């Protein structure tokens, strides 16, 4: 991974000196085994760029804030489709973006890592060994089998070598997907529950929701300039909004169901929403379920750049008599 980081820094320096105004990548975080988004505008700042299995963030959404500038952004395989989504919906000009693709050997699930190795890790280096990562720290090293320590989204990943990018950092890597991993297992378990128990399952999680809106803010598909849940109205008109600022189970349910529905057919599966949630709501269960249903009902083709719900076919399945 050291070579990748060096290659990345060289390319970033080259791009910045060739007209790119802003380079968005990852830098070291202040917490153990973490990274964070890094914004470099000057050549000396590229020395802080890193790439390692803690670089979980989807950086593509930041492009929306800099749509008027020439920007380069680091994309993993799971981040890449978000660019197409935003370009298709005319939020971004592909011509102003330089995509720096990094073949990815998987991202580590931070909680599981800390649970295994303790909360005070000081990692000096990380080596990608194909089916495992070796973490080197002062006094030793530790090898972690990817099957057990990767984030769930990585276990089902078939796109870890981003295609259609302008620069590729490093060589193609082998798939990280675990063939035994079934991303629909928990979904099927929920579907098998009687309706009352299903409702209880979701009430438990939606009841915890703080309405911090981190899921919406981090999601690249949530790109509306005025969100349906952000209608700014004076206090006396609050009753006219879809949900109020107050936290209530019905309002939380409404927010999550509709956000999932607005994103249905457009979700790129980056799973950032679930990662950022401070109370652990399993949002990807809904998003994955809707993505699967959308494909099953309406097919894979992107008839409309805005997603399946903005299009129709006279041959759509009709279960409504």
């Amino acid at each position, binding site marked *: 991974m050291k070579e990748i980081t060096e290659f990345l820094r060289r390319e970033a320096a080259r791009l910045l000196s060739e007209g790119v105004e802003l380079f968005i990548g990852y830098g070291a975080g202040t917490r153990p085994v973490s990274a964070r988004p890094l914004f470099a505008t000057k050549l000396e700042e590229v020395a802080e760029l890193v790439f390692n299995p803690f670089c979980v963030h989807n950086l593509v959404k930041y492009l929306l804030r800099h749509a008027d500038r020439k920007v380069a952004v680091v994309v993993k395989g799971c981040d890449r489709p978000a660019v197409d989504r935003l370009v298709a919906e005319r939020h971004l000009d592909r011509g102003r973006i330089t995509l720096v693709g990094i073949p990815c050997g998987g991202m580590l699930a931070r909680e599981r890592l800390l649970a295994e190795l303790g909360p005070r890790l000081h990692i000096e280096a990380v080596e990608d060994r194909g089916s495992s990562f070796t973490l080197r720290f002062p006094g030793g090293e530790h090898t972690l089998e990817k099957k057990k320590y990767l984030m769930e989204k990585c276990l089902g990943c078939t796109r870890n070598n981003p295609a259609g990018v302008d620069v590729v950092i490093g060589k193609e890597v082998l798939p990280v997907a675990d063939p035994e991993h079934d991303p629909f297992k928990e979904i099927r378990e929920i579907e098998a529950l009687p309706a009352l128990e299903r409702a209880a399952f979701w009430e438990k999680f939606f009841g915890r929701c703080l309405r911090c809106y981190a899921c919406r803010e981090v999601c690249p598909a949530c790109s509306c300039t005025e969100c349906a849940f952000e209608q700014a109205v004076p*206090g006396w008109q609050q009753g006219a909004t879809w949900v109020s600022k107050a936290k209530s189970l019905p309002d939380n349910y409404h927010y999550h169901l509709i956000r999932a529905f607005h994103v249905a057919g457009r979700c790129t599966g980056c799973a950032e929403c679930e990662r950022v949630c401070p109370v652990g709501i399993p949002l990807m269960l809904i998003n994955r379920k809707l993505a699967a249903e959308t494909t099953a009902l309406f097919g894979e083709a992107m008839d409309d750049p805005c997603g399946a719900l903005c299009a129709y076919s006279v041959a759509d399945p009709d279960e409504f008599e």
Partner: protein
Amino acid sequence: MVLKLLSKERLLPFIERLMQKFLLVAPVREGNLTFYQPVKTAAEVAVDAPRSVVPPKEWFFPQTEEIYRYATGSGNLSLAGKVTAPPAVLFGVRPCDLRSFDVLDAVFLHEPADRYWAARRENTLLIGVSCNTACPECFCTAYGISPVKGTGADIHLTDIGTAYLAEALTPEGEEIVLSSPEFYEEKVAGIEEVLGAKEKALTEEFAVQVEIGDIPAKMARLFDHPYWEELSRRCLGCGICTYVCPTCHCFDITDENRGNAGWRLRCWDACLFRDYTLHTSGHNPRHALHQRLRNRFFHKLKYNQDRYGIEGCVGCGRCVALCPVNIDIREIIATIRRL
């Protein structure tokens, strides 16, 4: 101050005794998260639970609180104000969160006092608990808080191995301790050393030793510094830091109605949200994210001190642990000191 011991086996019976007279709000585990909730049985209480996601200030200042409700019909109007303050025990509060109640008292009890906050504070017995482990993000000692001292609690419990050291710090706490047979007196040699050693071990677990210095004065010069814009580049503008912060207290008032009946609610608000300072005219003095982010840190690190004479942060580390993009108040403090 009354000093006694409580053996570990007698903790549950003590809690059950409390539950006969009070509503007990205590930390409970749900998966790998901790929440402060009213409990139905003593067994639900997770006394050594890791730091909660939402701080216990929620008991005194709920995320949504009904102020009043009204109903109209056949020429009548009924209006019912509501102050909910049952006799309660808030159990298992860590020293950082105990300090946060002082910070919020300065805000809510400032004349004219907030009667919702005041009533609950009045009717709630506080039982604090010293930390047994510290998270790497903690830095309470930077604000003069000790992870083993129960300043602000009525009773404070510290795990000293074989038993809990129980300190009754107020007349209400003393009354409870003296009337509960679970507590016993025993001379434990070298209590001061034990507590000192525990505090030292805990602070060594802090990943960063934060030095506050004279942050408020330094910040006065930094309002227009480009640092805030650079910091805001990765900020998502969500409300996580605000909603997990023990000292945040901004709220919005909203009216809802259902035809002939309605109610007024007070609910948490976050200064990072786009509409936080949005005026009815459409003008927004803090339209840019960096203005809102700057405001948040100025409030935490300067304005609270200027206005109320008490620091706005308690070093609990929640915002550091939960910010999705690693905006780290410890780092900001160190940067401000450097700039």
